[in-house]
């Protein structure tokens, strides 16, 4: 989900479970979406992307789902590991313009 100010939504999962992180985007014209992972003290790292002509894309242990009808993006992480603990941001662009980030979700994986 989204958040305001300092209070990031948090998701806590058990190691080995699947995680689903959600993002609502604002611009119905957005046509390219990226999920980034940010570990403490580091810059955002690319995870997976999807273009608006698709509704699902899979990577290694990750799947992104795009629902343009409700302007919703989700990131699914299979068999979540402690190394997946981070803040996850979705980002959107439209019409070849610059990227805008969502507020982020903090994922905590319990061993």
């Amino acid at each position, binding site marked *: 989900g989204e958040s305001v100010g*300092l209070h990031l939504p948090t998701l806590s999962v058990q190691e080995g479970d699947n995680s689903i992180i959600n993002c609502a985007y604002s611009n119905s014209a957005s046509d*390219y979406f990226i999920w980034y992972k940010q570990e403490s003290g580091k810059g*955002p*790292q690319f995870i997976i992307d999807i*273009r608006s002509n698709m509704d699902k894309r899979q990577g290694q242990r990750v799947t992104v789902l795009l629902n343009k009808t409700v302007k919703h993006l989700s990131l699914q992480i299979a068999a979540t590991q402690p190394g997946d603990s981070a803040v996850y941001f979705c980002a959107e662009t439209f019409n070849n313009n*610059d990227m*805008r*980030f969502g507020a982020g979700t903090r994922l905590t994986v319990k061993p």
Partner: protein
Amino acid sequence: EPEVTQTPSHQVTQMGQEVILRCVPISNHLYFYWYRQILGQKVEFLVSFYNNEISEKSEIFDDQFSVERPDGSNFTLKIRSTKLEDSAMYFCASNVDRGRDIQYFGAGTRLSVL
């Protein structure tokens, strides 16, 4: 693997002083960006740069900010007269094709304005 590098990793300055944050984008990339992230908040777009000029800038990027590509490798962000509220992480990013291509981020510079 090529990466975006940023220096310094931490910059401490007095309010009112000028700071220059430095970035070396990935060598074959054409588009360069600066973002800001206040502690605990989301990453905010500041400015994009292509072909030696600003492509787009946000409302945060006011007259106190400027960017420059002084040579073939460096990309800098200057803040002319720093304010307390400029304290944040500043990330540089680059990509090949603006808007429709993955942006690769540096590790960031933490700016602390005292």
